[in-house]
């Protein structure tokens, strides 16, 4: 009995260091942030104020609209990436000559830093001097204020994000498609299936595991995205591209530490509420297929 207990304790010692690190650097901050989100905090004194921070967060227009923007941004980028990357990956796994080159070209945007991409695109989207508008005007169109017009600003950032983030999804898809057993396609060909039928009934179902990773990764990435938006508009014009992360950053910069901590808790909850059920649902779907 005694020896058995010792044996079961023994591996715990190996886990302890990482458990300690996890506790100190992850668990403790989460717990303490829960506490500070209920206070007016200036790093030295924290005055308890109940749920006022949360009330303020949701009652104020600029903050509650940021939740909507976050959802539009996350789902917009995620859906576009899932769909576009699928067709690009199909194309890149087909029999084409310059496969190697095109694959690197598709992957290239991912090597550039987010900030650099953001700045470069915001220059290209400049309302009078930007490359895009110069081209549009040369072709006889009217200039579009991509980032200055609240109706197009968020969509412009989403488009940039998709351009930059697409490649990762493509790579995951390519790996998924290549791991599909060739015999399925051969069998389908013998049965006289068209290319479209093969795509719909073989590739699409069997690539589901990769697709699920892409959905989860890009959705979580979209929900907490900050750097690209900050580089391109800083949440502006006005508040029209403010997402949760940028609002939290601004609250923090303004010195409202309690309020910004509350925002972080809201973000944590939002991500969990969306990500966990989604993962569950996707796993179910995956199992059903198999």
């Amino acid at each position, binding site marked *: 009995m005694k020896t058995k207990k010792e044996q079961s304790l023994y*591996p715990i*010692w*190996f*886990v*302890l*260091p*990482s*458990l*300690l*690190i996890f506790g100190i650097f992850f668990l403790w901050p989460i717990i303490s942030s829960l506490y500070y989100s209920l206070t*007016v905090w*200036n*790093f*030295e004194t924290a005055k308890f104020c109940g749920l006022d921070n949360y009330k*303020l967060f949701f009652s*104020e*227009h*600029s903050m509650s609209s940021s939740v909507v923007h976050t959802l539009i941004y996350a789902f917009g980028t995620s859906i576009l990436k899932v769909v576009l990357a699928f067709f690009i990956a199909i194309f890149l796994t087909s029999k084409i000559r310059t496969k190697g080159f095109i694959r690197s070209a598709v992957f290239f945007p991912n090597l550039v830093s987010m900030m650099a991409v953001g700045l470069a695109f*915001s220059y290209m989207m*400049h*309302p*009078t*001097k930007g490359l895009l508008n110069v081209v549009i005007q040369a072709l006889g169109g009217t*200039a579009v*204020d991509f*980032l*200055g*017009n*609240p109706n197009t600003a968020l969509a412009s950032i989403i488009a940039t994000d998709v351009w930059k983030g697409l490649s990762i999804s493509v790579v995951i898809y390519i790996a998924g498609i290549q791991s599909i057993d060739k015999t399925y396609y051969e069998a389908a060909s013998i049965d006289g299936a068209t290319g479209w039928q093969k795509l719909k009934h073989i590739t699409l179902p069997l690539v589901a595991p990769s697709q699920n990773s892409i959905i989860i990764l890009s959705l979580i990435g979209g929900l907490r995205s900050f750097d690209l938006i900050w580089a391109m508009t*800083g*949440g*502006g*014009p*006005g*508040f*029209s591209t403010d997402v949760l992360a940028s609002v939290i*950053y*601004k609250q*923090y*910069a*303004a*010195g*409202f530490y309690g*309020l910004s901590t509350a925002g972080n808790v809201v973000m944590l909850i939002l991500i969990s509420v969306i990500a966990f059920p989604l993962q569950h649902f996707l796993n179910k779907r995956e199992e059903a297929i198999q």
Partner: protein
Amino acid sequence: MRKKIVSLALAGVLTMGLVLTGCGSSDSGDGAAPAAEASGSEETSGEKPYEGVTLKWWGGNAENNAGTQAVMAAATEKLGMEFEVEVNPGGSEGDNILKTRMASGDLPDFMVWNSGSKLHELNPSRGFLDISDWDIVQKFDDAFLSSVTIDGAIYGAPQSSTQAGAVIYYKPDYEELGLEIPHTWDDFVANCQKLADAGKTPVYFTGGETWATQVLFLGDYYNIAATNPTFADDYTNGTAKYANVAEATRSWTKYEDLVDFLNADKSAATVTDGNFAIGTGEATHWFILTQQLPLILENAENPDDIGVFGVPGDNADDHGLTVWEPMSWYVSKDSEHIDAIKAFLEFYYTEEAMDLYFGTYGANGPSCIKGYELPESVCSAVRVDMQKYFDEGKTCPALEYQSPIKGTACEQMTTAVGLGQMSGAEAAAMYDDDCKKSAVQLGYDWE
């Protein structure tokens, strides 16, 4: 499973090791440096008492200008200390950096930062040195001192001259169309209409650099105070709101009147673009702090082409100027070179150094050093246009020097109203909510 645990443990041990060695090496590094510097400064005491001392300072590009650099070079020549600048990126980015560095006890030796409410917001006693007993303090005028005094402690010394939140304009356009300086807001809008009819860009707007869009709102404070003398106190106590004081709401609706008069790239233009646009006459008016004057003049053909007038109100007989105290030098109380900083600042306020500064860089407005007169080389916009308001007593310190409360999303709102995305009345109400957050953070009980 067992493999997994072992690898986790190994990873843990490795990380632990990294953390420990990281701490160790940085400790020894920190310990060694000051010792070496201290012994260095002792050896060379003599003609240049601070030889070998390097002072690290933090400030924005506007402060790290040719004038400051010239004075610092002169100080190196005279006193021996070297300077190393760390650049403040400005805006809320800069606020964040300074607040974080202050909270973590990592301030540079000395730095430039706002006076007034933004100093209050920092809670300066935890990082800045009280310089009340330094001799230089005697030289500063009272308006400046009140903007850097908190609970009886004086923290700052003026980095430059005073400045105003006003309209900087391109005079040749006025001469060409025979326009008069407007003394009421309606006249101003009428002028804009004439300029627009003549195919000019009447007002420059910098939506790409949001802080600068606040200047119309903030610079309009003279007009609020002229009709509501107790506004600052009532606002601090939470009884006066922007949404329910008519003149205060007007500060917001003025943006609406200008929506059709702005530059084509209003949503993306930056302050640097503005310096160029006004200096070259690409646009006629710009609501901006006069700290931009020296930078605008760099682009202007003739320094007398550029003029300044206060944000017009509704009373033509009471056209005044909203004045900002300069940015200030603050000293970190943990600096190891406080003596050297003190010597530098003593030098900074000698007539020789001030002439060098204003002669090299120019001035943003009249000086706040008692008895000091700006050199002749300073532009007429400052020495004539702005001085007139000071001589007539038609100046009023900006609200941020009279109340510690300032809404932090102000610049997003002024941008949104300026670009026509929301109405002035909406923004006024929204700004009141925003101010409430600041009030709560500062411990005021607003209901």
